[in-house]
């Protein structure tokens, strides 16, 4: 099985986010980046497929945020090749642009499956999976949390999540593009020493973006007017004090509502 995984870096929400002085974008000067959570699940799922069926896993990321550690981690976990696509990439929010950047690299190899996270926290113009699948002419299924390839028939069996714990099962002819919600096992942990070893071995392949700039910067039909933080704690009455004082007040509230005695 020849599998590609597309990963991206997103701002770490644990850090305070600020709007830049222009008022339309995130202030990128202090941003800390981490791999998009669902992309990590996509990588894990690809590695699980490789373990069961053999084959190769290629990981692609554009040079936004801090992709090196993410790519070395992927190699340390068992990916075969890691590609970093370099170029002028400060476009912020546009997945249509990113899709054009990835496209030539994905077309070049006969991948049977291309996986990525079903969604990222900054997908303002939609998840990249369906955009790329359309450009590649591949079938797409997203919100997938289970899969079983069947190399003998060239198909893959997929489980897609619906509300209230219901799953829909599909069978899709490969090649296919899959938006992963959750891998069938939690993403594996890899000791830092292994990542450092991968770094020393220097396995990342750097490739320059080929998408022409006018395509890359195409307008997607809307103008961002402003970005802003929701009012903090709007609506909530904040309880101050020590943990004991907070617990006391919560107890009181629950008690008034007859929920604890």
């Amino acid at each position, binding site marked *: 099985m020849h599998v590609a995984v597309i990963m991206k870096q997103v701002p770490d929400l644990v850090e305070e986010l600020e709007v830049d002085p222009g008022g339309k974008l995130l202030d990128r000067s202090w941003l800390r980046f981490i791999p998009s959570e669902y992309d990590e699940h996509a990588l894990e799922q690809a590695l699980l497929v490789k373990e069961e069926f053999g084959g190769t896993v290629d990981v692609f990321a554009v040079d936004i945020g801090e992709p090196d550690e993410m790519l070395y981690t992927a190699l340390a976990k068992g990916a075969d090749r890691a590609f970093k696509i370099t170029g002028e990439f400060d476009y912020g929010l546009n997945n249509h642009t990113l899709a054009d950047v990835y496209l030539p690299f994905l077309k070049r190899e006969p991948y049977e499956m291309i996986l990525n996270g079903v969604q990222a926290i900054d997908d303002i113009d*939609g998840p990249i999976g369906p955009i790329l699948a359309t450009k590649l002419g591949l079938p797409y299924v997203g919100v997938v949390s289970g899969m079983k390839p069947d190399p003998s028939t060239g198909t893959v069996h997929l489980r897609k999540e619906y509300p209230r714990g219901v799953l829909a099962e599909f069978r899709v002819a490969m090649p296919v593009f899959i938006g992963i919600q959750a891998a069938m096992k939690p993403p594996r942990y890899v000791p830092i020493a292994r990542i450092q070893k991968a770094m020393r071995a220097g396995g990342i392949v750097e490739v320059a973006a080929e998408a022409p700039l006018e395509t890359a910067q195409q307008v997607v039909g809307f103008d961002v007017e*402003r970005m802003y*933080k929701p009012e903090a704690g709007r609506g909530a009455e904040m309880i101050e004090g020590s943990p004991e004082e907070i617990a006391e007040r919560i107890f009181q509230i629950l008690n008034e509502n007859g929920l604890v005695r």
Partner: protein
Amino acid sequence: MNKHIIVIAEHMEGALADITFEMLGKAREIADAVSGSVTVVVLGKDLEPFVRKLGLADTVLLVEHDALAEYVPETYAQALATLLLERNPWLVFFGATSMGLDISTLVASRTNMPFLAMAKNVTADGSVVVTSQIYGGKMFLDAVVTTFPAVISILPGAFKADAGMAEKETAVERIAPSLAESEIRTRFEQLVHPEAGDVDITQFPLLVSVGRGIQNKENLAVFEDLAEKCRSAVAASRPVVDQGWLPMTRQVGRSGAIVKPKAYLAFGISGAPEHVEGMKNAELIIAVNTDKNAPIFSVAHYGAVEDAMDVAQALAEKISGAQQ
């Protein structure tokens, strides 16, 4: 320009999903304000029973075919893309749901229509402005639509479903989709319903719910203890389930359970839109989170910026003390 809004209905196992009514209500409001019109498009088979419920639409368009009997992203996207190109709408609303997440972007890509995701609000006072909720609910973004038709995916819960419900006569149009069936590579097999779990979290008047902020599986014990003391159960956000700390039956949110307890205690849950979808109708929401900017505080009635474990432990002690 004819301001024609198309709402893509969503249904499963014979019932229209709430998101359909949420979108329809909003579409009706906008259309009335701009002298426009609303069409609800329903794809599937044997759709007649839905028509009556969609009385707020000017037209209900039924697209019926055996191949559409069950939702298949590829087939639905193909049928919808052709239809939207023919109808040339002004705005198209999809739900940002499990199904909508696939087909909204597939259809926009196929038709080259601009696409805006995660909309929390849409206004059409002069220009069309979409407010999207991004970065897990930590930022809002206002964007003006500059190219029409535009496709917008609407977050479940952004609008009231009640506003979209009206049972009355409306015009019905039936069409056969144009499908290149030989090109379809995706086959629907079946729906699998969850097995009854150890506990049914929708049945408890009080829920102790935990998120990634509890740090690790070992810390769960603190919350299990608290839940036991208040005859409640431990519910969770998605990452807690994805990490294997709790079974899927405990998950609250878009792909988990929709709960409406009397009180929902959210410990270390950020309040991402997909989680809020599942618990926003709790009568009382109390959130404990170390981040004062956590979006959960926007839906909570009471909040505390504190360590989840410390508060849970203190609360459990308080309850045992009171019971003695």
